[in-house]
């Protein structure tokens, strides 16, 4: 049986949402009308402009509340669900030992001009993230963190030298779709440098990725915001040990 939902304000089925945006026009009654019309076109009916504030002579900021008529069938929603069991560090270490009889080698980097190592460090540094220790904490994982602004050829070379089982790349900067361009460049370079059966697992992460785009970008997995080191470790083990 399918589950149909609509937004909840204070009563089941009221469909209430809030929205804020800026229009590049000076504040006037007509501007408020324009805001209301935009909200209506977005599916809010009735749309109530509850706040309009001029920002300088050329812009107006609006807050709109209203009811949307759209329905969502939750069962028909497609997402990337976790398709591997979540393991403790101990279980991860044991599985690696059993499956590989050596340490799992993971190389991490921020590629291109991205200097934001927050993401890769959260996953790799022993300090970790969200109360979980990073991959450096795992006895059976060898972590090589190349840091920021690593070029794709450098990354490929290191992956060859270290015989990496997995390559983790973090991309925070998304201006002009830099994260997508960089990821495609990376997956293409690994495709050229390795025969398919010896290619390391390619994993990218960052707050603005769509997790469903892995195939399109040529990588094995995409992790979005809020991913913890334990999830990444469990995924890697699942892939190499099975």
């Amino acid at each position, binding site marked *: 049986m399918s589950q149909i939902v609509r937004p909840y304000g204070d009563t089941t089925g009221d469909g209430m949402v809030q929205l804020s945006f800026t229009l590049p026009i000076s504040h006037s009654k007509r501007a408020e009308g324009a805001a209301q019309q935009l909200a209506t076109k977005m599916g809010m009916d009735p749309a109530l402009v509850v706040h309009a*504030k001029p920002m300088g002579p050329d812009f107006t*900021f609006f807050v709109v509340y209203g009811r949307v008529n759209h329905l969502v069938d939750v069962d028909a929603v497609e997402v990337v669900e976790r398709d591997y069991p979540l393991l403790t560090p101990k279980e991860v270490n044991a599985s690696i030992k059993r499956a590989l009889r050596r340490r799992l080698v993971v190389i991490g980097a921020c590629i291109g*001009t991205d200097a934001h190592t927050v993401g890769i460090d959260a996953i790799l540094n022993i*300090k970790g993230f969200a109360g979980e220790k990073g991959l450096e904490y795992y006895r059976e994982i060898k972590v090589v963190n190349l*840091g*920021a602004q690593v070029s794709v050829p450098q990354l490929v070379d290191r992956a060859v030298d270290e015989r990496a089982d997995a390559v983790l790349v973090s991309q925070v*900067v998304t*201006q002009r779709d830099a994260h997508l361009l960089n990821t495609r460049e990376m997956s293409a370079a690994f495709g050229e440098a390795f025969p398919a059966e010896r290619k390391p697992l390619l994993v990218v992460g960052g707050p603005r990725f769509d997790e469903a785009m892995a195939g399109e970008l040529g990588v094995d997995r995409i992790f979005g915001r809020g991913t913890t080191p334990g999830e990444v470790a469990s995924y890697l083990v699942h892939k190499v040990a099975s």
Partner: protein
Amino acid sequence: MSRTHAKLDLDPVTVRKARSLARKAGRPIVRLAQQHTTVSVERATLRLAGLSGADGEGTPWANRLLDAVRADVGLEHGAALPVWDALARGEAEDLVTLAQKASAGSVRFEVPEGVRARRARAASRRQVGAGIKQVDRRRAERDRLVKRHGDAPRQPWIYLIVATGDIYEDIPQAQQAAREGADVIAVIRSTGQSLLDFVPEGATREGFAGTYATQENFRLMRAALDESSKELGRYVRLTNYASGLCMPEIAALAGLERLDMMLNDSMYGILFRDINPVRTFVDQRFSRQVHARAGIIINTGEDNYLTTADAVEAAHTVTTSQLLNEYFAKEAGLEDWQLGLGHAFEIDPSVPESFRLELAHALLARELFPKAPLKWMPPTRHMTGDVFRGYLLDGFFNLVGAMTGQGILLVGMMTEAVVTPWLSDRDLALQNVRYVLDAAGGLREDFHPAPDGLIANRARQVLGETIDLLDKIADEGLLDAIADGTFGLMRRPADGGRGLEGVARKADDYYNPASEILEEAT
């Protein structure tokens, strides 16, 4: 900066001890810096002598000339002797022509001796001296404009960021931000510029997450803000970044183009950009000497430690770094009013009494450095994407800023970690700041933490831990401490990192007219 009445009753003996330990830890680094030069220090010297422009591929003439000099005679004598000797020998009539000829391979550089050396020293000193005069004139011009237009109406100064990548997009955004109340505009640099070993040339319209720092971009933005200052009746300051591999050159360009503040941390490049520690400390010292001369306020980067390390556990590393930054700054000739020492509101909001802990840390910085315009940085690490909660957090950040008399307040955006700030984000953020400063700007007067309360105790505890850490650093050496991951949990060995190949130990006949003139002043 405004006067503070002591609220924490810090033990003056302990405070003196902290400073003397910082001096002890820093002095070997200063000696190390005095014994070395770098490619960027030498290029900055050439730039102060008036060398600008780039070849057809965009490589600056300063790089071309220095590379040719280095290939012939090495870096250890400095650029001045071989370059001005070549000019005296009639190899070219000016620096640009010399650079052009040198990069075509038609000049041979030598290290002059005797009379020729004396002549080269004098000529280089005259020409570099003229550049430093220009920096002096820029400083006097700033003083004049501040007098004419008036200064920022109150403290903290409101510091806003623009970062489009396109200088011609940045300009109207910066002017709008100034109209909305910004006292200081920072143009964020393009990601990755810190690792370029040259300063790009000309006005730039492309950059990732920021705009390149170039002399022309500096000039354009300063001119635009001069217009805004006139329009608004208050001098609007401009900030950029003297960091990364080219910090000495960028400092020189900032001095020449009258920038007002520069990010300039003694260790940031080492820790967060993996630039070689020796390279950084040598470049740091020179760039700070330039900033001192130019009347530029530096902003240090301690806030960054708290983005990687825990803000409670690592609070004392911030204080430690502030004391080191103060020592290095004073040694380079900077005065108290030029020290925008950094710190940040980064304690996990789920920690009990986190606001009181923030107050303790901010007040400790205020009282340790009573005359410095502290730079107060907003939360980033615990901004989750819940913009509503983030807006509240920014409000509390602003309140700490008001209650502890911070000098420079970087405006926090509720969309931190979500998008680059929208027009409306900036407007809402400024409303937040204005509300807090209007509603509680004078609260500082009434705010006297209990002498044995959590705030005062916490401040004393952090100061105590700072002394322990400084003691350890003074003992084992700052370079080793950095290699051990003391700051921001980054481990950076002295022989690792980028840019080491651009460092040379000075020869006995090393000469640099810029260093000579800048050090005479201090």
